[in-house]
């Protein structure tokens, strides 16, 4: 749910990176943080365990310039991917305007991808959302690994609605900004539709 402030002329929106544990959600945000002009971004906050696993969420605020006289601000969040953090995942979805589903391309993680995708749908529903009514994109991450499944196969499995999807290697940054730009674009298009 976006927040439009006529007084400060700002549009604030929330984008959530979702996906199974260790799929690279935090790595996506870290790359965006490292490669963005410091004036266009705020601090990145990671609420993580001692072993750098996301405990609650990562947060990175981004400004993308003005549109029709309004400053656009995108708040990027990741959810904790590990299965047992489900209660926290639900909380992060509150007020979401757009989703990036990050899938792990490794063959042995396909089941985890599917499970996480289903979990995302269930958790959205619990918050009163329908996945079909929220802009989302899919990222096939870790394309550089030798055990990566063919994209076509992953598409069949995860991208039933034929939403925009991207191949990525978040560690080196490949595909990270393509994914980000597309979800931001979809969120603004949704805003344009209004109510």
């Amino acid at each position: 749910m976006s927040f439009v402030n006529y007084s400060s002329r700002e549009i604030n929106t929330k984008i959530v990176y979702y996906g199974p544990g260790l799929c690279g959600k935090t790595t996506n945000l870290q790359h965006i943080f490292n490669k963005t002009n410091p004036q266009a971004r705020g601090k990145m906050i990671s609420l993580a365990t001692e072993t750098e696993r996301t405990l609650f969420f990562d947060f990175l605020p981004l400004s993308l310039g003005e549109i029709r006289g309004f400053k656009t601000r995108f708040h990027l969040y990741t959810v904790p991917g590990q299965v047992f953090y489900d209660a926290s995942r639900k909380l992060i979805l509150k007020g979401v305007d757009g989703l990036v589903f990050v899938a792990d391309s490794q063959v042995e993680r396909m089941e985890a991808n599917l499970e996480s995708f289903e979990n995302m749908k269930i958790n959205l529903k619990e918050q009163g959302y329908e996945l079909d009514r929220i802009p989302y994109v899919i990222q096939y991450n870790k394309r550089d690994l030798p055990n990566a499944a063919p994209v076509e196969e992953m598409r069949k499995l995860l991208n039933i609605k034929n939403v925009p999807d991207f191949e990525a290697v978040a560690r080196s940054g490949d595909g990270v900004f393509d994914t980000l730009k597309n979800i931001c674009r979809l969120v603004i298009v949704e805003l344009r539709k209004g109510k």
Partner: protein
Amino acid sequence: MAFPQLIMYEEESQQISTVLERLVRESNAKTIFLVDKNGQLISSAGDVARIDTTSLASLTAGNIAATGGLAKLLGEKEFSILFHEGEKDNLHISLIGSRVILVVIFDEHSSLGLVRLRVKKASGELNAIFEGLIRKAEAASSEGAESPFAEITDDDIENLFGE
């Protein structure tokens, strides 16, 4: 859109600022923030220069969300007040109309009792402003008022991503 947006107008923004500025004075607080439950900063008053307000808003909302989750587990509707005590500064966080979060930062120049008392009074006023705001937004949408963003062109969107 699946969910109504939160919309802030100039008039209400002024009213909120007035309430917050008075609250800073009357409670002897250092800084006061008003944050949307989704983590967006709505307004602030007092000394904000040294604080990363965006991060503060996001973490406060996360804090309230986690506390709300705990409340549900225990069969409570919500815990409407949180208090964090530090060596120098303290945080008083309260929910207003289960929609927005009021954060008061204060030190030894004030006290928990005084903050609680003043927050209670200000909460009522803020709640009234937000109820009015929601009515206003609903009225605007039922009158079929055009979204100010309906005019956004594809070029506008592309320009945002100009390298």
